[in-house]
């Protein structure tokens, strides 16, 4: 009986059910299923594409990273699509669509960018939420969001990569350069306020701020840049008796950046509490509005994301024993005297013994004499061609016994100066090795590579790298070890990012902008870091990472920088000229223009401090800076890409694109 009744029942169609039943089921479906359901029939298509069902999916997946600004930008793109402006414009091959602009020329900010405008073809522009979801999911839409990086949150345009489930970010400043790739969800947030990047945020909270309040404060290095937000904590006035604190009644507001050590000038800044406008101390930059972090979650996020940076001061505290800059300037003046280097003879003996080894292999001694200085000789004492392609960097170990060179071969060749034997490291880098540096007083060395990694090796056991440091988002161009604090090293990549690393930690401990070609710590004291970027060379305070000075004067890109052994002078090389700068005065004190082939590299002579050795195309130029005399020595068959010297042995090494490395003395 029952069976017959069952047979008589017409097949149940979902569409016969009340609409609420259908809606309920559709609400349970994933975006992918909704898409598929929209292909079932006309009625379901209408339903499955409607905002009602997509709004939740957008909130669920993207809610953390998109804010009102994204919806406004999307309205903009939809409006353009509906007008058909781009689609009808036959004169351009433009496939993307610009979002809105804010600000006043030339400080304009692009609100968003849609890479594939075709996404909004046809009726998709009627489905606001669904098309937004797709543009986000497929990574076509660069939307405005904020990206945490170190203790700063940047205003950026961000797009999603579904393959890796991470984001890419571009920074509004610096011609839309990459701020980073493979950025995790945690590191992206919807803008906390809707203040555009060039506008001072109007602080409603500043009169209520009291010590230990957590804040984010707008900061920019100059008035042409957009603001970013820095995490800070409100501090006590110098005069405050903390038992009876009345700091919150004062017109002066102390803002503390606790990633800097207690004694650093950058740690505490004073702002006027009542000013609702940009405030500047001329040195550190420009401060805009303040946003108090009312929400415990926000504070916890900062602490969770950057525990290391917030504790940075503890790591750096024993950094203060490096001596003052003035001391080193004084000692330079005594070194300036040539008499000081009386023991040249003993070094010559060393060369004798070196030459007497006569290993044959590529060693081709030839002597060039120069009248630059009395009794001075300079000549090739050794040559090695162990590479199959361009050599771009070289460096001596502290004791002068090892010379490392590397380049397009993707490996390091270590040359033992005593035995003249060579050994190669494994080919672990996947792209060119751009720089190689020995750790001070160690056989360990580090390499930077275009493959965006930095690796640590031991020359005594070169078969495997000891460590790989990952963090850079682009080609790493250079690196250097700190001269005294030899757990510390730094590197820079070609998108102008400098990172500090501790050898015992795998993630970088500090990052900032300012160097893209080469980074070199000041020898001896290591108080400063020189970084070349474009035609500028900047000096950073190692302790605070603050830019202390910028040497400007080159008209072309600076390829190479080097310090004199005492750290008082810095030489920089561009194709057209070499400049020598005084650290004490900040001025260019010597300059040599290139009359022949382009300059490429340089190094201070290890013994004669008035001599600078310059690597050019095929030749070495010996330049007596004081007398401004030059001597040209034929050296290589191609560009001399790097030079190194050892004060212990008095040797100079030259690396060239002709695949060889040569030793000079």
């Amino acid at each position, binding site marked *: 009986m029952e069976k017959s009744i069952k047979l008589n029942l017409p097949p*149940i169609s*979902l*569409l016969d059910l009340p609409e609420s039943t259908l809606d309920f*089921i559709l609400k349970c*479906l994933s975006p*992918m299923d909704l898409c598929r359901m929209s292909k079932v029939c006309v009625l379901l298509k209408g339903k499955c594409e409607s905002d009602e069902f997509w709004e939740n999916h957008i909130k669920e997946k993207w809610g953390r990273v998109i804010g009102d600004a994204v919806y406004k930008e999307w309205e903009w793109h939809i409006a353009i699509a509906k007008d058909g402006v781009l689609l009808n414009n036959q004169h351009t091959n433009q496939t993307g669509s610009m979002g809105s602009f804010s600000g006043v020329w030339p400080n304009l900010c692009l609100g968003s960018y849609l890479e594939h405008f075709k996404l909004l073809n046809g009726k998709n522009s009627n489905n606001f939420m669904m098309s937004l979801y797709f543009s986000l999911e497929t990574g076509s839409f660069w939307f405005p969001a904020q990206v945490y990086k170190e203790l700063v949150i940047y205003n950026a345009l961000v797009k999603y990569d579904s393959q890796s489930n991470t984001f890419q970010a571009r920074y509004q400043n610096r011609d839309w350069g990459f701020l980073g790739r493979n950025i995790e969800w945690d590191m992206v947030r919807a803008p906390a306020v809707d203040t555009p990047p060039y506008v001072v945020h109007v602080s409603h909270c500043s009169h209520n701020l009291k010590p230990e309040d957590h804040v984010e404060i707008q900061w920019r290095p100059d008035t042409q840049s957009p603001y970013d937000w820095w995490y800070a904590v409100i501090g006590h006035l110098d005069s405050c008796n903390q038992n009876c604190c009345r700091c919150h009644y004062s017109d002066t507001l102390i803002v503390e950046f606790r990633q800097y050590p207690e004694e650093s000038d950058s740690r505490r800044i004073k702002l006027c509490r009542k000013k609702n406008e940009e405030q500047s101390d001329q040195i550190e930059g420009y401060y805009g509005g303040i946003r108090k972090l009312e929400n415990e979650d926000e504070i916890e996020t900062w602490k969770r994301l950057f525990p290391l940076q917030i504790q940075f001061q503890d790591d750096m505290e024993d950094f203060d024993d490096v001596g003052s800059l003035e001391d080193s300037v004084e000692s330079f003046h005594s070194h300036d005297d040539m008499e000081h280097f009386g023991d040249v003879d003993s070094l010559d003996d060393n060369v004798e013994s070196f030459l007497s080894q006569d290993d044959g292999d590529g060693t081709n001694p030839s002597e060039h004499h120069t009248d630059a200085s009395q009794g001075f000789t300079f000549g090739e004492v050794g040559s090695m061609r162990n590479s199959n392609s361009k050599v771009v960097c070289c460096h001596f170990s502290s004791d002068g016994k090892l010379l490392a060179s590397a380049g397009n071969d993707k490996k390091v060749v270590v040359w033992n100066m005593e035995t003249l034997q060579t050994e190669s490291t494994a080919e672990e880098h996947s792209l060119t090795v751009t720089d190689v540096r020995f750790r001070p007083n160690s056989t360990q060395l580090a390499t930077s590579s275009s493959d965006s990694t930095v690796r640590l090796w031991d020359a005594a056991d070169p078969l495997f790298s000891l460590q790989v440091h990952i963090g850079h988002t682009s080609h790493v161009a250079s690196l250097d070890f700190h001269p005294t604090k030899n757990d510390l090293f730094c590197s820079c990549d070609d998108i102008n990012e400098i990172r500090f690393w501790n050898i015992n930690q795998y993630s970088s401990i500090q990052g900032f902008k300012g160097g893209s070609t080469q980074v070199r710590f000041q020898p001896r004291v290591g108080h400063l870091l020189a970084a070349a970027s474009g035609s500028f060379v900047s000096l950073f305070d190692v302790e605070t990472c603050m830019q202390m000075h910028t040497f400007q004067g080159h008209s072309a890109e600076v390829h190479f920088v080097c310090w004199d052994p005492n750290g008082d002078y810095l030489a920089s090389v561009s194709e057209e000229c070499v400049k020598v700068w005084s650290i004490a005065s900040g001025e260019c004190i010597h300059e040599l223009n290139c009359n022949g082939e382009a300059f490429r590299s340089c190094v201070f002579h290890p013994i004669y401090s008035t001599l600078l050795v310059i690597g050019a195309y095929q030749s070495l130029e010996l330049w007596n800076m004081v007398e401004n005399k030059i001597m040209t020595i034929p050296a290589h068959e191609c560009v001399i890409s790097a030079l190194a010297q050892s004060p212990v042995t008095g040797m100079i090494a030259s690396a060239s694109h002709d695949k060889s490395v040569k030793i000079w003395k």
Partner: protein
Amino acid sequence: MAERGESSEAVMLKKTEEEKLRKGKMIVGDESKAGYEEEGKKVKLVTSDGVTMEVEISIVKEMEIIQTFIGATDTDDSFIFPISNVSSHILNQIIELVKGEYDQELAKKLSHDELKEILVAANYLNMKTLFHFIATAIANVIQNKSVEFVRDFFGIVNDFTEEEEAELRKTNAWAFEGVDED
């Protein structure tokens, strides 16, 4: 009629368990205890296939459509409610699901037809919890299935024109990747 005897037995068997459960709940405090006595009380329901079934009041209470009658009428054992849209088979399934406290494992044992019929019944009887439970179960079934499967499952006829169909395939092609076997 054999059918009826069987199901009544099932009800009897479940009864003791049900009572234990209710006693457990009473310790916590059963606030839903309305103005009428419910201990062991049953309501007679007549299904679409003419079967009269005695259903425990705790289950009937979830059926809001009958609940309105119970509230308005002085119920005694002789009162019979017709539920003309629900077959005895489906009512038994519903009872199982309610007693099983909506275990997803139970839903997996149901056929596609049963799922749909329970959904219709839950809608008719106005059983909110059951309705949500079964709608979710249906959403799980159609997850990651092809368009053809969905049409077949819901008894929907494709009413797109050829042009519309072609247009549809061009857009959002990724939604069709990795579809499960029907």
